[in-house]
């Protein structure tokens, strides 16, 4: 019997105990138990300076009584009793709301869709990924400043007093390398749930960015066509678009998209979807963080706003259905509304054939105004492109505008896509964007 199987039975016993104790005092009880192992190795310049291993455990308990919802969590599941007491006290303090019950077991069954059993948290393997990145970076004359490689496996169990009992397993490998040439930096990374990442290529790309950004030129302030890489696009979409699609923000008066259901909000060529079954999505899942079955959500279809995202609590309160959009995050695995794997589709083409400014990354996207979408960000690794290649690097400039307005007029998206956080995105070409140069 493997040690992971041993842990599994320990978990089953623990969950039964908590559900039983909680059920005596609340209408419904939900348990979310997560256990995981990860290894991390870090580079300082070209050498491994530390190797780390983590044993992670967390337990989140939710209880519902008379529409009052209480929550608590702990990183010491063995001490579940104070955690259950805290959840029960929390429910006493909450305002009651319309509540139609936690999910019941789904006969469709389960399984996991982002777990690769060959991805083992082995520190030597993490060290090997670092060495591969160093090798890749050798393609360009740069200094490596830092790098990291992390491999993790998690097992989660979601169970409730309606008989739902679901186990999920996830694996993740995440690597990144930062390089510098003179005063030009380049950072590249890759994340995957399976053992398919090309660490040599990640190192090469980081070195390319640092090397080719050296000797940048100033550009005058003006209006330019801009090509945002998936890295830059993901940050702006995450800062402004995703919060505006949350049902909670929509109904609580914090989304500018709230009154626009059925209306054109993007370029009619663009479709924004949450695809929980995307084969590359690191957050892909068959059910969401509270056990609702997930489904593809076409938020914006050919430019038209079609739906918002709901968890159970928000859906029950506002007479909607859960869209399977509950995600677990933070220290205690608390529930919020989010996306599992957001994708953008549209007309695919070669984006760099015509003149424009290609932007790999931006500095400060999180400072965008999440309500209005207004932003001003500094460009990182930006180049003037012409005829399909980089003409010269741009030393320093800001891109300023409004994320919602920006996506109303596009010139196409790239054929290639990449995983960035909870997104799998292409690059996008945008017309007439304002650049503040020097």
């Amino acid at each position, binding site marked *: 019997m493997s040690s992971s199987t041993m842990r599994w039975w320990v978990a089953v016993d623990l969950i039964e105990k908590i559900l039983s104790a909680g059920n005596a005092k609340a209408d419904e009880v939900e348990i979310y138990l997560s256990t995981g192992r990860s*290894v991390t*190795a870090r580079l*300082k*310049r070209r*050498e*491994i*300076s*530390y*190797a*780390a*291993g*983590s*044993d*992670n*455990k967390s337990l989140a308990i939710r209880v519902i009584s008379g529409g009052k*919802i209480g*929550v*608590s*969590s*702990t*990183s*010491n599941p*063995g001490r579940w009793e104070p*955690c259950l007491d*805290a959840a029960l*006290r*929390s429910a006493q303090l*909450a*305002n009651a709301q319309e509540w139609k019950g936690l999910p019941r077991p789904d006969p469709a069954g389960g399984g996991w869709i982002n777990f690769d059993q060959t991805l083992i948290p082995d*520190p*030597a393997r993490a*060290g090997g990924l670092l060495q591969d990145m160093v090798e890749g970076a050798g393609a360009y004359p740069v*200094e490596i*400043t*830092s790098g990291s490689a992390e491999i993790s496996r998690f097992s989660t169990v979601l169970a409730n007093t309606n008989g739902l009992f679901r186990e999920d397993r996830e694996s993740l490998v995440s690597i990144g390398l*930062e390089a510098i040439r003179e*005063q*030009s*930096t380049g950072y590249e990374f890759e994340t995957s749930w399976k053992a398919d990442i090309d660490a040599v290529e990640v190192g090469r790309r980081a070195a390319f960015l640092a090397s080719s950004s050296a000797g940048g030129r100033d550009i005058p302030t003006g209006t330019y066509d801009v090509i945002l890489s998936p890295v830059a696009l993901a940050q702006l979409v995450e800062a402004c678009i995703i919060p505006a699609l949350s049902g909670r923000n929509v109904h*609580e*008066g*914090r989304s500018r998209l709230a009154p626009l259901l059925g209306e054109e909000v993007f370029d009619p060529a663009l479709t924004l979807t949450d695809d929980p079954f995307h084969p590359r999505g690191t957050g892909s899942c068959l059910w969401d963080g509270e056990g609702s079955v997930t489904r593809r959500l076409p938020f914006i279809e050919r430019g038209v706003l079609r739906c918002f995202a709901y968890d159970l609590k928000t859906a029950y309160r506002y007479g909607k259905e859960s869209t399977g959009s509950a995600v677990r995050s933070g*220290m205690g695995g608390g529930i919020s509304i989010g996306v599992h794997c957001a994708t953008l589709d549209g007309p695919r083409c070669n984006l760099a054939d015509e003149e424009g400014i290609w932007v790999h990354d931006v*500095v*400060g996207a*999180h*400072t965008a*105004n999440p*309500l209005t979408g*207004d932003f*001003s*960000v*500094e460009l*990182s690794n930006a180049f003037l492109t012409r005829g399909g290649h980089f003409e010269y690097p741009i030393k*320093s400039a*800001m891109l*300023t*505008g409004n994320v919602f307005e920006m996506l109303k007029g596009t010139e196409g998206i790239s054929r290639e896509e990449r995983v960035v956080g909870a997104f799998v995105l292409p690059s996008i070409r945008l017309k007439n964007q*304002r650049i*503040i140069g020097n």
Partner: protein
Amino acid sequence: MTGIRYFDIRHVRGEVTHIDSENGRVESAGTSFLDRAIVRVLGPKGWGILSLDTFERPGRENLDEILERGSRLASLTQQEVVLADVPSGTIPVPPLKEDPRSIDLPEKEGFLLEIEKAARMTGITSTRASYIERFEDVYFGDSSGNEYSYTICRCGYSVLAVAVRGGEMQMGYRRRHALQDFPLRHMQDDGRKAARRALALLDAKRPRGGRMNVILDPELAGVFAHEAVGHASEADLVQEGGSVLGGRIGHAIGSDCVTIIDDPTLPEFGFEPVDAEGSVVGPTEIIKKGVLNAYLHSRETLAAVGHGHAGNARAMPGEPPQVRMSNTYIREGDSSVDEVIAECRRGIFLIGTRGGQVDPGRGVFQFNAECGYIIENGECGQMVRDVSLSGEILSTLHGISLCAGDRRMHEGYCGKGGQSVPVSDGAPHVLLHDAVVGGSGSD
């Protein structure tokens, strides 16, 4: 055990209490528990590190097992890590002004709802408030026989107001954090201020970006000190070759009115009684009258880079220590705020912050203001919104020509390497010449 040169253990147990309210209704309130430890083992070369949830401080037998695991990890490292020999010790945690544990949760909810209610003025369509209270029992012990433990409390709240008129939507917010105190009493004025800011922003215009003179208010100037100078002075980045401030000790990198200090001993939100590897904490003059004077250090970076003292290793529970800022500020000058505005003549006065970011290797920073005012003929005029500032560290500091005498500190959290730690930033009103301002306005 062979090959182990040093080890330390940092174990944190704690309770985190939160209250979230939305539009006058308590959405969630309760307490969660944390119990995490980090064990670092320094092998013949580098570190082997274990991050453990559910930690029982080990007896001799368990300790050997943990050290063996750490040692195996350390055997993979290549870089020879040297630790500077530095003084170890603690300073007292300031006494609790008011113990938040003495106030029950329903009463705390009442205080928070009062703040949120104060924000519900005419024209405000949505309000939200949240409170967080964190008690941590911290234990530190190392193989040199040093052992410390302390309890620390940090609390904070925020209130958000959304104003809508026609198709226009704007927000205003206020937030406060407190060290060793309960911050929720009699703070309804913050709700009103958040609401007034949201309403005023409905009439503000987007400025046209470009190069101009800028006045930073104390909150934003504090963020400037943090983003533009503080991060680049963290010696782990210097050691890696990833900071533009590397190799510039003794160089004039700013005007002589600029002195920037980091001080974990100040009883502000970034206070630490001892750092995360047991080193004594103390103030560091990073920039002294425009000249780069010292870096912020851990024991490892002090040995590798020099220039300064250890005491700035900080960590979230269960995470490895990193070199971090604590309470960082620009020292006050002797000008009045009116003199700063008059000296600006034509430009923009930026107020409040929505955060910032820096690329320390490239030496480029960006941060965003909550709002601002156009300055014409040395006087404040039209309100503007969604305005940010970017620049290069090595040139921008030369552009600071005046510092007022009204330094104030503001609390917040700073992220680095996946860890978020409490900090405070501070400054007086500061005049910055010829800065790059981002704004999407057309006139």
